């Protein structure tokens, strides 16, 4: 009854996604099963008392047994239930497909998470064999921009590097292996920033959030120091920045695991504002004609959105002008990890361009040359630096004229891929299918 009376909700704030609306009918979409699927999703997403049910369910789950927060717990990300009512697909490609789907949509790439004392850590250390492709991609940019722009790699480790349990200490080394594999592959003047090396000197500080998959301002700060060491800058000390704090931050990993011990351990978000005047604008994907004013720090972002304090979330392109009149310009290619890191750079550049490779449709090389960028910094998460889809996308932004939408992705990959000789290249082509990508 409530489906008809109450108007459909548009957005789920906790899940950070659009909620499905009632789908439009077309015979074609019916035949492919898309219309039916959408109706099911509509019914699920618009169910009455949705959030209350989720909260109630997690309470009920709690009472299935006993819980000891100081003991470690491993949580698996929900996957489709293998046992369907006698619906075994004769050809089960779903698990292989999901692997590649994860690369593209960057949902939790790790299937297992460790929860201990109310903190969630990922149990993954990247794929060292993939680091080479990331390095290759950087080298191509370095070669193309020789003598014009410096190219940096500032990839952070995953939170698994800092699990405070003795038997998981080896993850730190494994993360470093994956990162150093990038360094081993860099050439043509590309510069490697030893982010993990710098972070390891400060493990007494809280480097990653307990309830969110991002790093804290402290973690980002030490990465900034690692960058400064390579770029030849003097890092601005934290004490000379304005410190502010936000409380009760329950982030993405809490939403994903809905664990009671995590719920009782919300994060505190400290952020540091360099004493630099800034004027920031953002542009729509691919379009450089209409700038919209934005902020470097979002003071209004609270609760589950606290991490959006940095750069107000993930926008395709942000251009920040500062009062640091040294004529230097930088561009950062990042995903959400890079947000906390990029804000420290405003102390050193007159202009800062921050590109989220997931949403940008701008032609990178044009942007770099038109604006005479001095430093090009790649700061994606380690997952992104180890995944076919994202590496190819970062490459395409510069070399295949920017725009890569799902429909033409296959064509793009066939035309000019840095994975041409990679072992799984052909498999990845076959599995990429328009129908698999979730609708934005």
């Amino acid at each position, binding site marked *: 009854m409530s489906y008809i009376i109450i108007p459909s909700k548009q957005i789920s704030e906790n899940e950070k996604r659009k909620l499905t609306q009632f789908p439009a009918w077309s015979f074609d979409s019916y035949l492919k099963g898309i219309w039916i699927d959408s109706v099911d999703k509509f019914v*699920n997403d618009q169910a009455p008392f949705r959030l209350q049910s989720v909260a109630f369910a*997690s309470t009920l789950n709690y009472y299935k*047994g006993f819980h000891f927060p100081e003991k470690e717990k491993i949580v*698996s990300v929900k996957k489709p239930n293998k046992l369907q009512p*006698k619906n075994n*697909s004769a050809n089960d490609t779903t698990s292989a497909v999901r692997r590649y789907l994860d690369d593209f949509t960057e949902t939790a790439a790790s299937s297992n998470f460790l929860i201990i004392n109310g903190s969630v850590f990922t149990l993954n250390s990247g794929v060292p064999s993939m680091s080479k492709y990331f390095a290759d991609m950087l080298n191509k940019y370095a070669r193309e921009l020789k003598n014009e722009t410096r190219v940096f790699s500032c990839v952070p480790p995953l939170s698994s590097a800092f699990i405070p349990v003795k038997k998981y200490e080896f993850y730190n080394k494994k993360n470093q292996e994956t990162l150093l594999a990038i360094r081993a592959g860099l050439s043509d003047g590309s510069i490697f920033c030893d982010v993990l090396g710098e972070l390891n000197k400060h493990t007494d500080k809280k480097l990653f959030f307990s309830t969110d998959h991002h790093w804290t301002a402290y973690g980002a700060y030490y990465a900034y120091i690692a960058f400064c060491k390579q770029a030849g800058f003097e890092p601005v000390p934290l004490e000379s920045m304005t410190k502010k704090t936000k409380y009760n931050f329950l982030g*993405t990993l809490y939403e994903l695991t809905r664990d009671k011990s995590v719920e009782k351990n919300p994060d505190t978000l400290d952020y540091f504002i360099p004493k630099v005047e800034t004027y920031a604008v953002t542009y729509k994907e691919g379009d450089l004609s209409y700038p919209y004013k934005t902020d470097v720090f979002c003071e209004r972002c609270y609760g589950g959105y606290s991490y959006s304090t940095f750069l107000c979330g993930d926008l395709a392109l942000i251009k920040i002008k500062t009062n640091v009149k040294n004529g230097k310009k930088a561009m950062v290619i990042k995903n959400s990890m890079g947000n906390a890191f990029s804000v420290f750079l405003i102390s050193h550049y007159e202009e800062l361009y921050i590109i989220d490779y997931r949403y940008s449709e701008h032609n990178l090389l044009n942007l770099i040359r038109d604006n005479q960028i001095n430093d090009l910094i790649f700061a994606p998460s380690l997952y992104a630096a180890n995944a076919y889809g994202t590496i190819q996308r970062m490459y395409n932004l510069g070399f295949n004229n920017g725009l890569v939408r799902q429909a033409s992705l296959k064509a793009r990959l066939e035309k000019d891929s840095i994975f041409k000789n990679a072992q799984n290249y052909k498999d990845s082509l076959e599995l990429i299918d328009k129908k698999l990508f979730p609708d934005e």
Partner: protein
Amino acid sequence: MVFSSLTFLFFFLPLTLFFHYITKNNLFRNLSLTIFSLIFYAWGEPLWVFLLLFSAIFDYGNGLLIAHYLSKSKLKAKWILALSIIGNVGILIAFKYGGFIYDNINYFITLPFERPTNTLPIGISFYTFQTLSYTIDVYRGEVKAQKNIVNFLMFVSLFHQLVAGPIVRYQTIEAEMENRKFNWADISSGVGRFCFGLFKKVIIANTAGELVNKYLENGFNDLSSPEAWFGIILFSIQIYFDFSGYSDMAIGLGRMFGFHYDENFKHPYAAISVGDFYKRWHISLGKFFRDYVYIPLGGNRKMQLRNIMVVWLLTGLWHGASWNFVLWGFYFGCFMIMEKLLENVLKKTPRIIRHCYTLFLIILSRSIFYFVDFSKLKQFIVKLFYNPLPVKDAFYTDIYSHVFWFVLVIFLCIPWDEIIKPEHYLRKKTELVYAYAQPVVNALLLILCITFLIDSTYNPFIYFRF
């Protein structure tokens, strides 16, 4: 569509009940049921619904023809029966086993054409068997051919049992097709049964499924021996509660509309031998193979051991188009034969030992059922028995955090209705209390299940964009 979905619970079921009881006209009732059932099927299979219709009309025709010729020319009737068998088994083989057969032939001789890539039409294993049992029963004279096509279509497509069983014989509902009375007791017990089945599926099976995923899927490489056993025991729990939950829901739904189906599960994990297990698990399938394969082959009169093996191999193959299912059937066939040969020894063994030995065999067999890939299966068997890997602390956490749930599972597996006789005071008291409390219990179970279903659709993304 699936029973354990919000679309079904919020929309489909209420609408179907409404249209069914809005009139006493039986034709309208059957027609509305048929239409809804077809919508139900088409919901999951927008394309293959036509195959279902074809299969139903095909055997409707066959049934009428066989009945017509039965009295005139037995030979002609036999030919039509043969046609029906070939047609039904043919459809099943083509759509379910096409890829499997192709792979096996292609292994030896490269075939000039492409591998069939169709998806498996849902429920094909059930409805082909169902219509096949109908034509055979018509031939044997056990039932009268159905003249009304709507009724026949309803028999085949009835959404209660189309997708996940039980395999309902025509005889079971022959009378009820025309004669169903509105009966509060039936509806009430139907709703109760349905809610109970939903509870089994959503709260027991799905929970077990998450743990199975964690251990046997994501954590496969690091499994220690206790963890491997834990994983496969959980899979045994999942598969039983999932399947029997669906059967409960089917039987409950049937009751709600005035149909009475036979039981499909009788506390199988209380079995004391493989033979006993067979009589308690997926009873409708066992009966099908007994009546249409085992007995025609000679049953226990002629070459019994061979017949047992054939039935089990076919049962295995029915479950899936892959060699591990055949192996599963072979495994049980061997033990069934062994039990027949050692019948006297077994009779003297204490009940508890027989029960433990049966449970052990069943749980072990689940690993053959789960791992479609033989190399993974081999690795898993090694992990079960000869495995130096240490147990992770997280394993103990999982056990502690599910203690009460495990108690509930064990409670539900015990065959209370067999242990406590109907005359016993405790049973009488429980039944009385339940009769009064039923609506409240049903409502509670329903709310609980809907809560968990909504929770399972909760799908947080890790990035910020929307």
